[in-house]
């Protein structure tokens, strides 16, 4: 949105006054952002260069020890790659289960479509904490899911207090975001194009692969970006369902800030998450460029 405002050609008298108005209108939110976001982030960046004393103390300093320590420590390298891999896995799983639903919703019409859309959005009305506890009840050792698997004659795997639990829980929690993003990006998908493909003799799978999928790529890219960012920053579900076995960036930041009291390290990890966000955004705009190129 900001780029759109800056792209206004200033040579034109009329649009330069429009740019003036646009800047004036942007000023309040820019101020709120500066005070509520940029300043704290700068504070955080400064904190990441302080020195942590044993026992939770902080010494004012200017040392890169937190950063270098992070990149030299096998545990943290594993934690960072684990966070990225798990978040990518969750994003992929969310995409696979959401895509058919979004496609069906896109084609539905009238009251039926409204009803289904409300149904898709309704989980967002319940807090993620409540939904996570729901999953804990469902996936517990003697829970309904384990019983169904056992009744089919299989040994139920451990689905709780490990990565499996976190992936299942987060996939469901992120589905509404993915479905809404997909639907928003389905604008170019015109039923007439599909009909044309079919009349020209393309079988259904070929129509999907050569026509539908390419036309829905912008929606896929948007949904994946959103879900990846939400997954890697999610805290409640991994904390509740990870059983202390799943080490991810967000839970580690909590532990360092609240339990170990190592604020400098927590700040360093937080800045690292921001860097990953930036990288994800860069990849997204690159993909978008290629798609629409």
């Amino acid at each position: 949105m900001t780029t759109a405002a800056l792209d206004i050609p200033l040579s034109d008298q009329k649009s330069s006054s429009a740019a003036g108005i646009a800047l004036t209108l942007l000023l309040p939110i820019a101020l709120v952002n500066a005070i509520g976001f940029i300043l704290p982030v700068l504070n955080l960046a400064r904190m990441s260069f302080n020195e942590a004393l044993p026992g939770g103390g902080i010494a004012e300093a200017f040392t890169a020890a937190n950063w270098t320590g992070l990149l030299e420590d096998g545990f943290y390298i594993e934690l960072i790659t684990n966070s990225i891999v798990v978040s990518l896995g969750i994003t992929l799983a969310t995409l696979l289960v959401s895509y058919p639903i979004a496609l069906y919703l896109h084609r539905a019409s009238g009251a039926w479509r409204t009803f289904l859309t409300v149904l898709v959005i309704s989980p967002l009305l319940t807090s993620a904490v409540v939904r996570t506890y729901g999953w804990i009840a469902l996936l517990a050792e003697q829970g309904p899911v384990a019983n169904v698997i056992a009744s089919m004659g299989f040994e139920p795997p451990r689905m709780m207090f490990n990565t499996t639990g976190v992936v299942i829980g987060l996939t469901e929690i992120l589905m509404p975001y993915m479905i809404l993003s997909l639907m928003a990006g389905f604008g170019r998908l015109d039923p007439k194009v599909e009909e044309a493909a079919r009349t020209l003799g393309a079988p259904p799978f070929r129509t999907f692969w050569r026509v539908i999928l390419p036309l829905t790529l912008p929606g896929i890219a948007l949904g994946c970006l959103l879900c990846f960012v939400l997954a890697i920053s999610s805290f409640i579900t991994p904390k509740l369902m990870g059983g202390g076995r799943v080490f991810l960036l967000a839970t580690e930041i909590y532990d360092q800030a609240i339990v170990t009291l190592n604020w400098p390290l927590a700040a360093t990890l937080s800045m690292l998450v921001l860097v990953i966000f930036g990288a994800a955004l860069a990849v997204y705009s690159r993909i978008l460029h290629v798609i629409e190129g």
Partner: protein
Amino acid sequence: MMFARLSIAVSALTIAAVTSASAETVTLTAYSGIFQEHYTKAVIEPFMKKYPDITVQFYGMPNSAQMLGTLRAQKSSPQIDVAILDVSVAKAGTDEGLFDKVDESVSANVKDLYPNAHAEGVAGVGVTFDNLVIIYNTDQVKTAPTSWNSLWDKQYEGKVIIQAAPDIQGTTFTIISNKLAGGGDYKTDVSAGIAKIGELAPGVQTWDPKPDVYAPIANGQAALGIGWNARAQIYSGTSGGKLGVALPQEGSGFQINTINLVKNAPESDAAKKFIDYALSPEAQAAFTGEMFYAPTNSKTVIARDALKRTAADDMDKMIDIDWLAVAKVRDGITEQWRRRIIPLSR
């Protein structure tokens, strides 16, 4: 982090709004939940009856670290007068100059405190002692465990819950396990304890029980675990006996909560009166009777049945944990948990 900062700011505003209501209002920060409930009943209400012109406002927070964070944020303009928090966190706060010394000029009761209520380099003094115990579900564990080794019993595999380090439950458990395994001085080497917990690891259901360790055991999701005596005693009552508490024969380790006077606090004189009262035999006895924390004042006289539910009778079996020394090696202990214990349970 952003959220934490925001909530600190919001809580600071709330406190400011509350304290301006009355001239002599002492704001105390300590643990929220059942600690708040019972401390209010046993100590704060009698204090306010004794000093009608002082109001004590209890500002509860879930853990010591959050209290320290709030005190840090308010350093230039404190809104809190008194803080009750864990001794190792109190040390960090003292090092950062957040507290004034609590000595005999603040309270004559200080001279009557047990020696381990004083920690070198901590401005405050011990106000409660608590100790680690085994907690168990009485439906699943028919006879009360008598030894820590019950946790390693194969029949409870997958039914054991432990709050892992860096939480101090995990840290205390490491020191106890180190002693069980015949390891040496915990201040230099806990590898024997780490190896012993490693044997337990595959059978552990969760290393991070939620909302705490007591609820999953009371409702039968898990059979056995470790917890703090005082809270376990309370939940044992409220769960209708589903939660059992056992102090193993090998003894245990203490956790110490200290009471601290905040530097430049708005109501310092009233705050000193409150600290004096909190350390008095009268208040100590009342809180032990209410919530089964062992008293820190040696002059405290406690009813026999309440005393039996604390570790007071087993003082000789207690491992004397030097929490300030532990603070220095805690990062190393946490690291070993993450590299040598938790991976064994995946």
